[in-house]
């Protein structure tokens, strides 16, 4: 990635927690995963931050974008289907923090 990209902090298999914050604006992190813990499935590259792009700002440095895998039973306490089911969501690095 270019020098305009933030360095990737996570690697596939790392456990991460989605920040439980609710800023206004054009946010691409779905509400239902905020505050939940998942595992990095892959790094997709680095992309200009859509929260900035939406307001005609450059969105740089580009944010690493990950696919994070969550267990459906972790997202939905009342999940009634197979316990092995997962939901995978694209999340930008600035929304993630290390989970223990």
């Amino acid at each position, binding site marked *: 990635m270019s020098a305009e990209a933030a360095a990737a902090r996570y690697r596939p298999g790392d456990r991460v927690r989605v920040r439980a914050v609710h800023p206004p604006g054009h946010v691409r992190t*779905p509400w*239902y995963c905020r505050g939940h813990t998942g595992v990095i499935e892959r790094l*997709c590259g680095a*992309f200009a931050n859509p929260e900035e792009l939406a307001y005609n700002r450059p969105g740089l440095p580009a944010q690493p974008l990950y*696919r994070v895998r969550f267990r459906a039973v972790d997202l939905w306490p009342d999940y009634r289907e197979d316990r092995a089911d997962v939901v995978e969501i694209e999340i*930008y690095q600035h929304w993630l923090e290390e989970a223990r």
Partner: protein
Amino acid sequence: MNDPAGPGRAPAGDSRGYYRRMQSAIEELLILKGVVTADEVAREVAAMARRGPERGARFVARCWVDPAFKAQALADGAAAAEALGLEVGPLRLVVVENTPDTHNVVVCTLCSCYPRMLLGIPPEWYKARAYRSRVVREPRAVLAEFGTAIPDGVRIRVHDSTADMRYLVLPMRPAGTEGWDEARLAALVTRDSLIGVGLPGAGPQRDQPRRNQMADTIRKLAYFALQAPDKPGEGARILEALRGAGVNLVAFSGFPSGRKAQIDLVPEDAAALKAAAKHLKLKLGAAKTCFVIHGDDRVGALTDTFARLAEAKIGIVASQAVTAGMGRYGAIFWVKPRDANKTAKLLSAT
């Protein structure tokens, strides 16, 4: 469509939704400011309407016959598509493979992100709140409603397309297709199987390969005729009055009838039209029945519907159809009153 009141200001009684008005306003502003031209918008809309799921089907068929291509597809979907001659522009494509123990399904819970360069315009249900909110919470229940049963012990991976990636499901090659060539295999690959709500060559889509692929909404609706003098301004007068009364029309048609003109009104809400007509002293005829179709625009859009009527020996009294832009079309048709219920049942009209 240009708003006479100018960008951003809806004329009084404008019955389009808020977001449709906002979309028109933004489009007009982009054109006025020279960011895009009306011609470019029209060309892109036409190009979008031309692309369909057969592109994705070709991609999958190649994966099934060529292991090296499949490996490339799983590593870099967009590069693989380009290698196949499918132009995909800036698309970043993640290909997710179904296996005997994993089934993939794609959604965009935030809006309607969809691999349009490979599948064309998304179906209405993909953009609907019901699909977007439910498939992440109860995927098996949703898939069952599509006629797709996922066996116990198979894990479901739901892919929420929230950011820069787009997703294509690589279904498993159906058993019994050994030795088939790519074209024959591609014909098994339905749009729904590429989203993950269906399976290739299975379910109701196999019996009706084209019919269910882009389901039209067919509604049986009441319409009301009224007579007006055959002179300039009558249509405008009546529409103006209905707009002022907030009556939303699904369809409208007018034509000469003897020495007068007949105007047919198909309201979204018959009671609202009747109340408004009473107030406005418009003399409506009795409620009669017509059928209105909305669907994804494509070549031969009406053909299957009319063929089914023909098979059932139902004659069409009159019909009009028009494309609606943005990849959609609408049609209206009338049958003899005695055929109305049979038609509704045959076409599963709502």
